[in-house]
Structures are given as structure tokens and as C-alpha cells.
């Protein structure tokens, strides 16, 4: 695993815009960064794929255990949220995708940092933008990327056995608009769903209607929403006004409500309890004291529901704060995780590897670099190849 420097295409902005990547820069700072790329060996990629598949399997076992052992309260999941989680799991509501964030620098096993299982983004960059970059600059190389095939295949599975006139063949896709990044991810998923045979409607999550007569969520044409992909956190939905309608709406959500368990960082403590000292896990617990002796590099405190690096504090081995990010999360509690060694992307910069799960299968890799230790929404997406 090597970080290689290579000149960016002189016309890289127009090159990526030509394939629909209109959120390549934020506030004039490039988010897409192609003056470097990561090079892997085939063996390293095989290892990452196997690690992600294993971790996902362990995560699914953990979901079952958390529900069966009635541990949802430890995750801050109570009341309506707990009902939705348990019901969706009992129904085996299907899931679409997720991104496992791994710490890996080419030495030793990859370690799970967290699972973005509910509202992962950077999918379009991983599936399309870095693929076109590779085709343009290094067509003979390979890339851990069968994301599009995986997504279309997964959407086809979701259509299996559903009759032609059934409203479940129509997928509504929703996020907060306007937001170039979220919308870019949404449009890409919509394209994959269309390819698989769905008809689709995209709408702002605030435009979703509730028809109290038919007890259905409806779109702006008052068409009922039978299936909805929502790029919007479950824990927000359940506490909002329409949250109480979800259970009787007969709407099937992607991701399903049970993903609330996996996107919650309490899962890290649950996994460590179920699979202690597993090669791909970092020690994690609700109390720092429980894992301090197994954390030679220090500890990290993460808000259970934190997103985009918010409310994360990294401590050195001597207890001093190495880096900390504020945010609006944390009321729901925190979990402690042993600090991992991250791949170095510069004197201070680090890289985190996001392995994408489509359905239950690892299908691709996207790498994000941060200027410091915590990967936030200021990070950069950097392409990769393997050979």
C-alpha cells in the first residue's frame, strides 16, 4: 500500500463534471483530489475484502444479539425507535448498502473504525469518479470497484417476485434539498434503480406528505410511497412529526430501521464484547477504564450518533488530547475505542479506507484523506488502483 504522487489532469474539473460530478469542490477547496492516488497489491485488496465481509457478518450477528438480548436501551434506542428496529428486523426488511470505515496502513490487519450503515455517502465518487480517473490514467490497472454491478444486482433482487403493477416497483428517493453532495449520491442510486427496472421519483424529504385517510406517505402527486430510499438519519426521522406514522404506513424504507443499530457507535462495544480480540476489531467499551490497558496508542471517545467526525476526541497514550472536534451530538452518550494507527497521507494527514457493502457483499473501496487525525466533511476523496 503506497501513496503515489501523480499530476492531476490539467482539465480535471471539466473531466469530472462531464460525468456528473458537480460537488468536486467545496468553498473553492477541492474535495476530489487526484494529485495523489493509493496503490495496493492484489493480496492487500483481497485482505480488505475478506475483512469487510467478515466484519459485516459479525455486525449482522450483533444486530440479532442486541435485539434478542434487549440491549437497545444501551444504544439510546427506546420507545418508537425500538419498536421500528425490532419490527423491521423481525420482518427481515432488506438493506441496500453501507460503508465500513477501516484503519489500515498496509501492515497488520485492517481495523474497523465504524460502520456508516444508515446514511453513507461518497458512493458516487467511489463507484464512478475514481473509475473514470483510472480508465483515463491507468487503464491497465485494476480497482476494487464492482459497485455499480452490485447496486443494480441488489435493486434487481428487491424487485424479484413483485408483480408488474405493484407499487413496490416504484422507488421514491429522498434527502434534504438542496444539497449537491447528498443529491449526487441520490441521483446515482436512482440511476442504478432505474437500470434494475424500478420506476423512480426523487423528492425533498420535507415534501413527503402523509395522507391520513389512506394512512400512506405520499409524494407531491399524492402517489403513495411504497418504498423509499432516504438519505436521512433514522434517529432524526423517528423523533420528527411523521415518525409516529412510520409503523402503520406500510412503507418499506431503505435503509431499514434495524440499521439504527449498526450506524450507532455503541455497536463497537457490542462487537468487542461478542468477538473480543478479533483481528479486525479495536477494543471498545462504554467505559474508558475497561479498555485502557489494551490501547497502547491512546483512546478515542465518539458520540454514539455522531456524523462526519463531529464530537470525536482522540487522546494520546498519556491522556493528553491529540485532536478534538466539536459538534451537536453527544447527548445520547459516548463510546470509547482504542486508537488505531491510520495510513499516513502527509506529515500530519491521514487516510481512512471505506469498504462498501452492497447487500451482504464487499464490492468496492473509497479512500478519504483528512488533514489531521479525524476524518470530517473537510476531507478529500483520493482514488486508488491495485495491480
Amino acid at each position, binding site marked *: 500500500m503506497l501513496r503515489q504522487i501523480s499530476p492531476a489532469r490539467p482539465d480535471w474539473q471539466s473531466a469530472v463534471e462531464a460525468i456528473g460530478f458537480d460537488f468536486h469542490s467545496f468553498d473553492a477547496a477541492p474535495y476530489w483530489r487526484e494529485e495523489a492516488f493509493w496503490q495496493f497489491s492484489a493480496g492487500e485488496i483481497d485482505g480488505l475484502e475478506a475483512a469487510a465481509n467478515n466484519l459485516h457478518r459479525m455486525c449482522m450477528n450483533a444486530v440479532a444479539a442486541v435485539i434478542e438480548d434487549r440491549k437497545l436501551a444501551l444504544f439510546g434506542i427506546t420507545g418508537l425507535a425500538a419498536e421500528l428496529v425490532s419490527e423491521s428486523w423481525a420482518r427481515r426488511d432488506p438493506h441496500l448498502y453501507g*460503508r465500513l*470505515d477501516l484503519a489500515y496502513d498496509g501492515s497488520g490487519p485492517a481495523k474497523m473504525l*465504524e460502520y*456508516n450503515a444508515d*446514511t*453513507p*455517502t*461518497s458512493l458516487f465518487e467511489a463507484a464512478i469518479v475514481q473509475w473514470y480517473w483510472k480508465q483515463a490514467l491507468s487503464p491497465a490497472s485494476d480497482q476494487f470497484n464492482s459497485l455499480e454491478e452490485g447496486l443494480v444486482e441488489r435493486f434487481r433482487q428487491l424487485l424479484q417476485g413483485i*408483480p408488474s*403493477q*405493484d*407499487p413496490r416497483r416504484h422507488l421514491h428517493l*429522498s*434527502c*434534504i434539498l438542496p*444539497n449537491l*453532495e*447528498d443529491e449526487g*449520491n441520490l441521483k446515482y442510486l436512482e440511476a442504478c434503480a432505474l437500470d434494475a427496472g424500478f420506476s423512480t421519483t426523487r423528492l*425533498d*424529504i*420535507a*415534501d*413527503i*406528505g*402523509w*395522507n*391520513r*385517510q*389512506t394512512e*400512506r406517505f*405520499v409524494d407531491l*402527486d*399524492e*402517489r*403513495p410511497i411504497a418504498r423509499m430510499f432516504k*438519505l*436521512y*438519519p433514522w434517529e*432524526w*426521522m423517528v*423523533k*420528527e*412529526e*411523521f*415518525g409516529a*406514522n412510520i409503523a402503520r404506513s406500510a412503507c418499506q424504507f431503505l435503509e431499514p430501521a434495524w440499521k439504527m443499530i449498526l450506524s450507532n457507535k455503541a455497536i463497537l462495544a457490542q462487537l468487542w464484547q461478542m468477538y473480543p480480540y478479533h483481528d479486525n476489531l479495536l477494543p471498545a467499551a462504554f467505559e474508558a477504564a475497561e479498555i485502557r490497558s489494551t490501547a497502547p496508542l491512546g483512546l478515542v471517545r465518539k458520540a454514539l450518533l455522531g*456524523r*462526519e467526525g463531529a464530537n470525536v476526541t482522540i487522546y494520546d497514550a498519556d491522556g493528553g488530547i491529540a485532536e478534538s472536534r466539536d459538534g*451537536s451530538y453527544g447527548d445520547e452518550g459516548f463510546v470509547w475505542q482504542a486508537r488505531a494507527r491510520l495510513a499516513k497521507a502527509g506529515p500530519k494527514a491521514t487516510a481512512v479506507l471505506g469498504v462498501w457493502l452492497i447487500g451482504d457483499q464487499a464490492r468496492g473501496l473509497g479512500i478519504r484523506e483528512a488533514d489531521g487525525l479525524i476524518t470530517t*466533511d473537510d476531507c478529500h476523496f483520493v482514488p486508488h488502483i491495485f495491480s
Partner: protein
Amino acid sequence: MTHAALRARISHPAVTALCSPCRLQSFGKSGFMVLLTLMSGTLLLAGCDDHKKSGGQPPASAQQGKMYKDLDACLADATGMEQVTACREGYHQALQQMAQAPHYDQRANCEDVYGPGNCVPRDSVVPGGGGGFMPFMMGYMMGNLGGHTVYQPVFIDRGGNALANGSRISNPSWSGGAPAAASPSSAVTRGGFGSTATAGAHLGMGG
């Protein structure tokens, strides 16, 4: 006779003509013929084989023949658990009967009959209802078919006439108040999702 069997026997072509009184005929497997008579707000459905019997029977429910704009109006009118149950069952069966309600390929054609804003996509009301548009259910009524209580959705055309089962109801009497000349939006509220993101400085969902 089950209500499902009733639905199978009463077929409703898209309503283009209004008639009162009205007869709809269809033949089921048994050769059973349904006569539909609508008069003075009372829905009377009688099988040929036993129309005498149905005429002589006491009504299955004291609410029979009454029209309600919604479930709440029916419940307000109900005395006793039996009628409360009848209100609820009636409401849900009227909703199910929407599968047989008139429908149109174009919203404009539907609105020509029922008025602007009073038509909705068919599949927003009837699960798996396919394409097209249909009028909004403005209320429901209870009637009698062969001694069995039956329930029908009531529509209101752009002239303000109440319609049920493809026929105009003369002298409709709404118990607990007539429906407002409502548009579909009266049943739909929006903005119930998204408030958390709006309240905070939302940048994106990525992790």
C-alpha cells in the same frame, strides 16, 4: 354472502351517465342478478332470488341508509358498541370498494366530472391500482343487500351531487354534517420530516 362476493358481482363501468333510479345488472356464477336501487339516500341492493325476503327483513343496522362524511361523523352518531363496530367496518369496506370506483386515464377527464382538485392518482387510494385518476372519497354510506349491510364510498360531482355506486343519490342527507367541497389536500399534510436538518446547520450525511 361475503362482501368480497358482492364486490365481484357488482361491476361499475366508468361513470359517464347519471341516472336515478338506476339498475346495474351483472350475472355471477349462480346466475344471481343484482338490482341496485337508490332512492332518498337509501341504498338498497337486492338479489332477484330473495328480494322479497330482503324487503321484509328489519335493517341490519340502525345506521342503515345514513351517509357520513367520515369515520368521526359516524362514530359521533353511533350508540353502542355494535354501531361503533359498524362504523369502523363500514369505513374500511367503503375504502376497499374504491377499487371499483370510476377511474379515468387523465386527471383532466376526472376533474371534468368531479371538479378541479377532487381527483387523485388511482394507486394513491387503491393498492396496486395501476394508472389513472379517480375521485376522492367524500364520505360513505350504509345500505342493505339481501339482508346484509353493505357499504359504499360516496363521491360528489362538480355540480354538488352525491354519487354512490355509479348513481346519483336524490335528496342526500348527511348525518353529522355534509363534507366540505374538499380537495385531496385536506387529507394530506406535509413537512413532517426534515425538521432536524433544518434546525441544525446541515452539511451532508456522509460519515
